């Protein structure tokens, strides 16, 4: 048992902390309040962070990346999220898919895509699964409706595949240069057996970005529709095998018993937001006064601060444990449980922080209110009932062994 960090881990943590404090915090509130969905993004911060290695943190060293372990990745995500949750996610979204390239792509694909990704500070990655009529059915294909799930169609024509259909709510869609796209290649087979994953470049003919979504929270984070109208993708861009897209839970990608990275990612990001909220709440409680007395003197404020810290430290313990478990290929349902837990924690902690900042009249603390909106994003990514049922199914499977 050892909770201490290595020097390298500590160094990454400190670099990220400083970046969050000095570069992210000064811009985050103004970006959050930009009136339209396009004004919330900032290429400059992406470039700055990329130069420090945050964009390529998970790319193996042999391809020019930082090749860090999961513990380091968790630390960096949490520190960046202390500055801004969505900016942290914009970086880590690339790790998610660079994990996937490293795990699932063939050597030729790695050369073709990882090299340019590493070289270009504005090269962002994305993945398209969700469609207008298929959300949770992709995550947990129903037993009694074998044809449920995504509909985007890919048909082979010689050395190419022709893609037709639509994806929605796709992270990084409006800013990414390369996407993993799940498409139905056998419309008569169930989802897991009839879907193929393709690498689709931004400038693919017949592929375009549709609407850009404007979220209530995570406003920095770009999210959009993808429209495929006879989009032509070379066969060489098929990831793994045809009719076998489910890389992340199959042989090539599965090292941790669930999603390789996504569960940890959301939990670690939430941890950063909670840490920020705890600090803010304590600072406010010690400096703001009522009748000349610091708010902290009031029992109800103390109880809220206690609860915020209690949940945050429980989450921190859990996150660091699953990061270590990922590094050591421990099979369990823990990452999913931590992700579910992070939903409850980030929402409760940010809401308590808002309560502490609340009070007089019709005014709101901008920062505290932003964190609540960011926290609500977890509801559909990490803590909805489908995400919890999925983990429960895994628990039952583990218990059977």
């Amino acid at each position, binding site marked *: 048992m050892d909770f201490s960090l290595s020097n390298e881990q500590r160094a990454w943590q400190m670099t990220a902390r400083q970046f969050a404090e000095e570069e992210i915090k000064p811009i985050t509130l103004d970006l959050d309040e930009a009136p339209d969905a396009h004004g919330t993004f900032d290429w400059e911060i992406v470039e700055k962070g990329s130069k420090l290695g945050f964009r390529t943190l998970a790319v193996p060293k042999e391809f020019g990346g930082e090749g860090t372990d999961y513990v380091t990745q968790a630390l960096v995500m949490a520190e960046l999220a202390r500055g801004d949750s969505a900016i942290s996610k914009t970086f880590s979204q690339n790790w998610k898919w660079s994990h996937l390239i490293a795990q699932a792509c063939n050597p030729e694909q790695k050369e073709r895509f990882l090299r340019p990704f590493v070289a270009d500070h504005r090269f962002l990655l994305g993945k398209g699964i969700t469609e207008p009529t298929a959300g949770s059915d992709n995550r947990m294909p*129903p037993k009694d409706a074998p044809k449920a799930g995504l509909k985007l169609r890919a048909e082979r024509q010689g050395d190419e595949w022709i893609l037709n259909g639509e994806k*929605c*709510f796709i992270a990084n869609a409006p800013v990414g240069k390369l996407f993993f796209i799940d498409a139905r290649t056998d419309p008569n087979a169930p989802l897991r057996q009839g879907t193929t994953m393709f690498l689709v470049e931004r400038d693919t003919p017949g592929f375009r970005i549709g609407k850009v979504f404007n*979220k*209530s929270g995570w406003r920095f984070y770009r999210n959009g529709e993808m429209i495929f109208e006879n989009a032509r993708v070379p066969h060489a861009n098929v990831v793994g095998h045809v009719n076998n897209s489910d890389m992340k839970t199959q042989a090539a990608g599965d090292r941790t018993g669930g999603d390789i990275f996504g569960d940890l990612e959301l939990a670690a990001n939430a941890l950063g937001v909670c840490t920020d909220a705890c600090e803010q709440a304590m600072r406010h409680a010690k400096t703001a006064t*009522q*009748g000349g007395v610091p708010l902290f003197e*009031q029992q109800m404020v103390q109880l809220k601060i206690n609860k915020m810290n209690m949940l945050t430290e429980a989450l921190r313990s859990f996150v660091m444990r699953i990061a270590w478990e990922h590094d050591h290929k421990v099979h369990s349902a823990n990452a999913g449980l931590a992700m579910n837990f992070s939903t409850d924690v980030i929402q409760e902690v940010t809401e308590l922080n808002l309560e502490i900042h609340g009070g007089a*009249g019709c005014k709101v603390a901008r920062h505290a209110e932003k964190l609540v909106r960011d926290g609500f994003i977890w*509801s559909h990514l990490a803590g909805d009932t489908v995400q919890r049922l999925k983990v429960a199914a895994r628990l039952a499977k583990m218990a059977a062994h």
Partner: protein
Amino acid sequence: MYNLHLSPEQIEFRDTVRDFVEDEVKPVTLKADRLDLNDRTLPVEVLRKASQMGLRTLALPEDLGGVGADALTCCIVTEELAVGDTDVAAVLAETSSLGLRLFSAMTPEQRARFGPAFLEDDDYHLALACREPGDDSALGINYHRPAARMRLATTATRDGGGFVIDGAKDCVANGPIAKLIAVEAQTDKGPALFLVPRETPGLAVTGQPGPRWYHGSCGQISLKGVRVPAANLLSLGDASDNGRGVPLYPALNLGIGRAAYEAALEYAQLRVQGGRRIVEHQAIGTKLAEIAVRLEVARTAIWRAAWASDHPDATADRSLPDLPLTTIARVFTAETVYRAAKDSAECFGAMGVMRDMPLQKYIHDAMICLHTGGGSADDKLRIAEALTSHRRTQPMLAAE
């Protein structure tokens, strides 16, 4: 005796307003653009139509030219309006309740001066300016301890036959749209209330700065050498106990919850995942049931408080407990609706957080109700004092 039948008029009011919301309010307020926090312009045309239906003068007694609706009816109307739009509901609730409060307290001369314009002009709204910048009305540190008596920084100095008012007010509901503003100011005899028409020289109103954190219309008022005749002094009598007043704000809050719930229930019967409508999944069904239970219970508590505010005799005869029923309804509703809005949004997946979809608006609207003023934490301390019959005297408004 105990009877939960609504009157035919109450049911008719509810139906009429519900139709109005469906036909006239929602098409305006649920447009994608207006669902974004950054564009919450008041739907002036809707407010005007509502005024023509009598909703602006709903609580004003019939003999003063109003509709003369009782507190329960006012709450029913406010809930229905808030299902369509909280801003519409808040503006009308404020003018309607101030109409009752101010005009009932006016002298015949004052009524003659201000009444006709108020009744005739569908854009005529009212405001009460009593909060000062920096005021902290939270109980907090004063719980179970005597509170220091506050002195108003806004002053009214006698000058010949009238008064000159100087000062500033903050968070004035309806401030930016009111044509008549009741301003509280310190006189040499204590605090007093003055009727100040909007166009009075020296009076300036600005929208509340910073992120939007209120329903309806809200602003700051600056008063510099504002001269009003002594005849504009209003004798309002003792301030009513806010904890036992008409629960309009909880009713508005409940409307938000209902809008979210109705959207979720409808969607859950349309959306198919896992081969069946999501309402047929235990997890979604249970979530909807939990929302419905809490909203039903909240409405019951609001209606009780509304009726009680009109019937203090029911406390006297021990049919109702001697507690601040409106505060109880408010704190319960605020927590219930916030949770209901979040749970409803969750049923929509990613659509629950999109700014051109209504669910994120409902969450934000509910959050405002939960956190404005002293918030629920403060309400609970007030209830706690009432449980041990610890009575706080409210500051009184001086009258000549």
